[in-house]
């Protein structure tokens, strides 16, 4: 394991806190109706969501899942514009037309959060094909959930990426549960990374609640893909504390399972690491947490003060009008 700099640890801790505060805020807002639609939460998954993105290089791309707030924050999206999008405001990333499940920032490499389980696998192949064709040296990090690995698109895209040696890291966040059903009822293998064998690509399973393990593994996987050796299938075992979405608010996950994972809370884990290794003082840690919290309060303020889209905007952007050169 490589020694991590203070700078990267600071970014990790700040962004993981930002992600946690963002989602706590969204959870508070949902019952009041300010967030009009659903907003799938991933509290508990911050190590894999956030830290994996921190291992990327500038210019690398990501495809996010429907449970993508923390992934987006990890990738560096502006929480003001994210919160505005969740509140359906004209200032949001998608001008209020996407909502929680479709946050995108295409020009900066986030080709979009995807509302469809497994919808991002094939799109990532395309984004990676562009990188390979244009010889950019960039890699696509494709997030997906455990159930997405049961979609046909998972198998088709892993096969295609393998034979074309596309620069992709497929990252399966296995939070052990589908909407409400344990993953173990929907597949007989223990590790989804075993499926890499069928496509003759590397497959690795890691503890997704450990920020340092995530970071180091991602660095290796990204280096492999960047070197033109083809895709990697990573599986991170993780856990979400909340239900699937609005519809799963009353989650029926066994209490002891939730408790067991709460003990491994990734934000707490990193905090303890920072303290134990005297990377930061208690006061410094408090400051990082406060700043992360403030950024979310400011984001809400920004979103609340932002205008709704004009109704006439409903017709905008169905088609790109101009013809290519």
């Amino acid at each position: 394991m490589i020694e991590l700099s203070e700078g990267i640890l600071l970014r990790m801790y700040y962004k993981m806190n930002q992600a946690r505060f963002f989602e706590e805020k969204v959870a508070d807002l949902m019952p009041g109706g300010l967030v009009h639609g659903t907003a799938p939460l991933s509290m508990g998954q911050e190590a894999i969501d956030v830290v994996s993105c921190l291992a990327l290089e500038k210019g690398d791309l990501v495809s996010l899942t429907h449970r993508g707030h923390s992934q987006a924050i990890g990738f560096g999206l502006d929480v003001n514009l994210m919160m505005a999008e969740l509140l359906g405001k004209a200032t949001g990333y998608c001008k209020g037309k996407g909502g929680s499940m479709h946050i995108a920032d295409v020009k900066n490499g986030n080709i979009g959060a995807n509302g469809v389980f497994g919808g991002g696998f094939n799109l990532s192949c395309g984004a990676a094909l562009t990188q390979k064709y244009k010889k950019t040296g960039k890699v696509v990090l494709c997030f997906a959930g455990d159930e997405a690995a049961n979609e046909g698109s998972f198998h088709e895209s892993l096969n295609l990426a393998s034979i074309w040696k596309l620069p992709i890291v497929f990252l399966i966040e296995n939070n052990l549960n589908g909407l409400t059903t344990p993953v173990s009822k929907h597949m007989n293998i223990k590790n989804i990374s075993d499926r890499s064998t069928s496509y003759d690509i590397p497959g690795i399973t890691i503890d997704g609640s450990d920020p340092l393990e995530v970071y180091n593994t991602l660095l290796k996987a990204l280096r492999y893909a960047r070197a033109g050796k083809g895709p990697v299938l990573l599986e991170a075992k993780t856990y979400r504390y909340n239900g699937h979405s609005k519809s799963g608010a009353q989650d029926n996950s066994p209490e002891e399972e939730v408790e067991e994972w709460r003990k491994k809370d990734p934000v707490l884990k990193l905090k303890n690491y920072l303290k134990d290794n005297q990377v930061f003082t208690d006061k410094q840690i408090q400051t990082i947490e406060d700043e992360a919290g403030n950024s979310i309060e400011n984001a809400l303020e920004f979103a609340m003060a932002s205008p709704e889209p004009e109704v006439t905007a409903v017709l905008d952007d169905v088609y790109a009008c101009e013809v290519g050169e």
Partner: protein
Amino acid sequence: MNNNELKKMTYREAIRLGMTEEMRRDDNVIFMGGDIGPRVGAFCLSAEMIDEFGEERILDTPISEAAMVGTAVGAAATGLRPICEIMFMDFVTFAMDALVNQGAKMRYMFGGQTQVPMVLRLPAGSGTGAGAQHSQSLEAWLCHVPGLKVVTPSTPAQAKGLIKAAIRDNNPVCFIEHRLLYKIEDDVPLDEDFMVEIGKTFIERPGKDITIVTYGTLLPKAMEAAVLLAAEGIDVEILNPVTLYPMDMKPVVESVIKTGRVIVAHEASKTGGVGGEIVARIAESEAFDYLNAPIIRLAGLDIPIPYNRKLEAAVVPQTKDFIRAVYCLLDCE
């Protein structure tokens, strides 16, 4: 190169020429399809192209339609202009998420942040004895998805002009080509800037007595019927909505106002077909008051396409059906 030269070629060759010209013009254009590799594609469209452009730009994919179309969408959103071929339109079923939920929605859902300039080539239609799973005309499904454009050429010249316009368009364009038209030969402009504008309905044959609106492989049948009817002194006007979605209805409405009688025809099965939409739009327009007779829809029967030659022909409208429908409308006063 701007020239006025015409060359006789088949519909199939015209599509290939259009693609080839665009690939020469723009390095971002790539072509992928199942089994279009060095041993040449199922309908021989990629022959020669692979020699010129190499396997970097002519990408042979496994038989994984979802991956192929999804890859095209992802590549288009990040700067390439892919052309994608699904060997039989019937198998667009495999690619529906990529096309409908991803490609058609990305621009709108992301507030205009991106565009998806891709072409999905879909060989379609019956008449080759290919049976129920290789003969369908599913264009109405695609016309029901805002964000997609749907075009279908009927002649070699249209095929060339339209594939070029589709490649240059910044949206996902479904390009439906009828397999029975592949061997049709006609004059095609060699001018590299010749294009058929997407979003236009064309008058294929001017006339004053009756309007026929049809497209794809039924156009030659309607034209044949018009020639036979002309000998009887009946002057048929034929319109071809080469772009099925979004459709240019203005020429249709104007024609119906002129003739007062209209037949709408397609090979696809009638219920839920594009013809129903055309008829509804005529009924909603000022042309309604000019109708001197009920509107007739000629369409495929609401059944799967059978194998037997005689049965297969019985499913879709033929030249004689156009003639019968014309007389039927002229009898209405």
